[in-house]
């Protein structure tokens, strides 16, 4: 094999390798029920302070990913607030994580829709990516030991919380 042929072969090999690497590394984050919840210490919303899901170990946590520009998130906020008020005595909490948003808009949203439950803020879509999120809102029920009990990629309403979320908590 001549030097020129060898060079061409190596170039083709490099391109194929690059494409294969691309296909493997572009794979979306997949999380499933039973997996540990993706967690990270995040700034509290409103500032100051920081928090994480791990702080609520021993409690059921309904993690809600939301953004101020998302219309279903506005409809969902009072539903989650009611759920929080009803269940906070029973070792259950709701934890909002603001994603894909700017802080001013997020704060304005919370002034307009006071939730009462704790809120964290993720810069950009870093947390959405960690949760394998495809949009907002999305909801994740986390067991007291930190594993995912339910993944719901969409808004929740009273009926959903009553029929899908409450039985999991009560069944434990």
């Amino acid at each position, binding site marked *: 094999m001549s030097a020129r042929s060898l060079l061409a072969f190596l*170039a083709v090999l490099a391109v194929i390798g690059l494409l294969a690497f691309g296909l493997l590394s572009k794979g979306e984050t997949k999380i499933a029920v039973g997996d540990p919840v993706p967690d990270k210490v995040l700034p509290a919303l409103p500032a100051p302070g920081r928090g994480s899901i791990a702080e609520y170990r021993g409690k059921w946590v309904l993690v809600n990913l939301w953004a101020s520009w998302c*219309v279903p998130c506005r409809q969902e906020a009072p539903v989650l607030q009611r759920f929080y008020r009803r269940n906070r005595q029973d070792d259950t909490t709701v934890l909002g994580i603001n994603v894909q948003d700017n802080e001013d808009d997020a704060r304005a949203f919370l002034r307009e829709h006071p939730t009462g439950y704790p809120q964290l803020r993720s810069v950009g879509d870093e947390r959405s990516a960690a949760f394998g999120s495809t949009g907002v809102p999305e909801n994740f029920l986390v067991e007291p030991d930190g594993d995912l009990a339910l993944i719901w990629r969409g808004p929740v309403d009273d009926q959903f919380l009553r029929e899908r979320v409450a039985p999991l908590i009560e069944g434990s």
Partner: protein
Amino acid sequence: MSFRCAFSGLLPDKAHRYVLFVLIAALVLAAPAVAAPAPQTTVNAIEAEVMCPICGTLLELAESPQAKREKVFVAKLVAEGKGKAEVKDALVAQYGPSVLALPKASGFDLSAYLVPILALAIAVVVLTFSVLRWRRSGRDEEPSASQAAADAPQGEDAERLEADLSHYDL
């Protein structure tokens, strides 16, 4: 010294009031212009260089609800007199580094940085080898003095050549 004192005697009372009114009106109208900082960049210039991270397109092309809020955020900063770099820094602080129209330095996107460097390195190597080979072949083809003497016309050929060339002597 009051306005009235400064102009007393120069203008009648009615004229004082008129001049005072005009001056106050001018100050009121000019105040916002003085207070508002001069824009250092334009909304369009920024929108052409940053992404709507959720849409995966340039902000200027995006029309999603998130993009609209991002545009409002940019417009606010531009109106505050922030420069292009400051606006981009603020966007990164709010929306993360993916807001910049730059590939990530990890995963497959890393190839956007590596491939040009690799291509340049290969080009340099290929060019160096080509130049070396060209120079070597040039040296091989260059005739030595003895070779040149051996190749020179001999005998009759040399005489005929000399005769032909003599026709062109000036």
